[in-house]
């Protein structure tokens, strides 16, 4: 076990380095309103965050993450561009048997800058690389923006694209939907029964036959979805060649420069990813300019696609030994600023380091 004082000291060192890099220190409350986090992450976060009850303020959560309060602070009164740094505890429930810490320090660096997103991506990554040098960590990068662009460019209905985009962070559900939309999986028995039922009459008649109307979900909403389901049943599957490219993209793992060459190769067949691939290329150039060897840097197109995430562009992790959680991780979260900004929006990228893990690795070497 690393003493808390050693973790704190390591955190202070890293925080000083972030301030040196031009960040302004920022503090956030330990108690965060649960509603914001629940609306953002859904009920799943209850399994990970500590929830407590305040008689006046309602449900509160012990800060599970810094990004949301830092974004909120910036969106309400931040000047642009801005760089922020912070150090403090976050709290995550863990399985009893996992042995993982449920309370630990995070030290983080966030950049809010409209001018050159790829440059900011590279700035954050290179800063983390420098601070973690000598710890024998393996960096892994990804880009969820390419995947999202590929989905938006599919030749299928807006409804199907929206369903896929909604589940982009839930890989299993995403794949199940893609399998169905592309005809790789049969239509489920439940859907066949449902379509048979809907064929028996107009939605409004069927609703009337179903008996007493209860609940807030209106007959218009029910009718609209029933009609959409019937229309969807007549929608041709996503073309096999197009689907194959998407499956290929989901599984793409290669050194970044080789991944770029591969993506350039498939862009003529998936033209919608063109702009996202250009951004990827610009990022690699910016990384190379900061001395990152992109011919060896690991790239995984599905990296960062896990529940309770919000990254929608560049993502990265610095991984230590197998039994250790990621020592550092981060990414771009442009959409989050729009969700929390009440109409306002600013491109943003950042990441966190766990000082205790850094101290542990330093102690071992």
């Amino acid at each position, binding site marked *: 076990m690393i003493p808390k004082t050693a973790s704190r000291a390591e955190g202070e060192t890293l925080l000083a380095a972030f301030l040196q890099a031009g960040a302004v220190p920022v503090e956030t409350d330990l108690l965060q309103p649960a509603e914001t986090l629940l609306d953002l992450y859904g009920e799943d976060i*209850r399994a990970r965050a500590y929830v407590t009850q305040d008689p006046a303020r309602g449900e509160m959560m012990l800060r599970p993450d810094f990004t949301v309060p830092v974004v909120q602070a910036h969106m309400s009164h931040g000047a642009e561009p801005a760089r922020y740094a912070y150090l403090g505890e976050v709290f995550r429930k863990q399985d009893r048997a996992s042995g993982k810490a449920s309370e630990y320090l995070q030290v983080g660096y966030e950049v809010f800058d409209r001018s050159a997103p790829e440059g900011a991506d590279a700035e954050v990554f290179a800063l983390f690389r420098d601070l973690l040098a000598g710890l024998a960590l393996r960096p892994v990068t990804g880009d969820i923006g390419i995947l999202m662009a590929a989905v938006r460019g599919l030749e299928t209905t807006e409804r199907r694209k929206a369903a896929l985009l909604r589940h982009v962070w839930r890989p299993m559900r995403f794949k*199940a939907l893609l399998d169905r939309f592309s005809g790789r999986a049969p239509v489920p028995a*439940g*859907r066949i029964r449902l379509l048979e*039922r809907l064929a028996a009459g107009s939605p409004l008649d069927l609703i009337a036959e*179903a008996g007493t109307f209860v*609940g*807030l979900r209106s007959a218009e909403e029910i009718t609209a979805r029933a009609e959409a389901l019937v229309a969807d049943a007549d929608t041709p599957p996503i073309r096999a060649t197009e689907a194959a490219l998407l499956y290929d993209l989901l599984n793409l793992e290669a050194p970044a420069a080789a991944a770029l060459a591969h993506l350039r190769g498939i862009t003529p067949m998936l033209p919608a990813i063109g702009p996202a691939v250009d951004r990827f290329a610009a990022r690699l150039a910016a990384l190379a300019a900061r001395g990152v060897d992109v011919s060896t840097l690991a790239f995984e197109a599905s990296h960062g696609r896990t529940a309770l995430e919000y990254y929608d562009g560049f993502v990265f992790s610095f991984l230590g030994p197998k039994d250790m959680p990621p020592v550092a991780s981060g990414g771009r979260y442009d959409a989050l600023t729009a969700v929390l900004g009440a109409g306002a929006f600013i491109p943003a990228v950042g990441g966190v380091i766990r000082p205790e893990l850094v101290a542990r690795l330093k102690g071992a070497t």
Partner: protein
Amino acid sequence: MIRIGVPSKGRLMQDCFDWFGAHGVVMRRDGADREYSGVIEGVEGVVPVLLSAAEIPRELASGRIHLGVTGSDLVREQLGEDEVAEVSKLGFGQADLIIAVPNVWIDVETVDDLDAAAAGFRAAHGHRLRIATKYHRLVREFLQRHGVADYQLVDSQGATEGTVKNGTAEAIADITSSGETLRANHLRVLSDGLIHQSEAVLWASRVAEWTGEDRKVMERLVGMLGVRPPL
């Protein structure tokens, strides 16, 4: 001395006594009709503790009882695998934890449809689709496994079937044995909405202190009951 928690009243108590009785372990309530104490005959070193079925998980988790009989729904909702071990299913007290939606939702048949309905509902109403339940953990794990988003769980400790009509929830997740109450409240179970098949189970606490003497008694008891040794 092995302390075994058994339900203190009703059908569950009687079924429990019958099950143990059929294996030569005779349990009965002791003293006056309203006094919650019991006796066991047929095996030495075991003492019954009459408890509300709802309290038995907590007592197992604290180690105040070594064994306990209660529904698997309550234990799976409240406890982890490292706190209790299943000794045997007892074959009574069956009830299903299910998800039900208004019968007028003619566009919703499966959990998949519920997820799509939740997305549309949130867009139309500005809040997440509410599911009333008292089984927060089981329901959340089930919905997470199925990739459902845009819902929220609202707590309902009783009369859950009425929450939809009363406008405090859009759907429910609750225990049902016959489905009669659901139909009476204009609700229908999703065709793949079975979250947990509950029944009465004999549990062993991993937290309780098991002395050498307790383990010997347990060996005898396991032999009589014809079950696997749990620990």
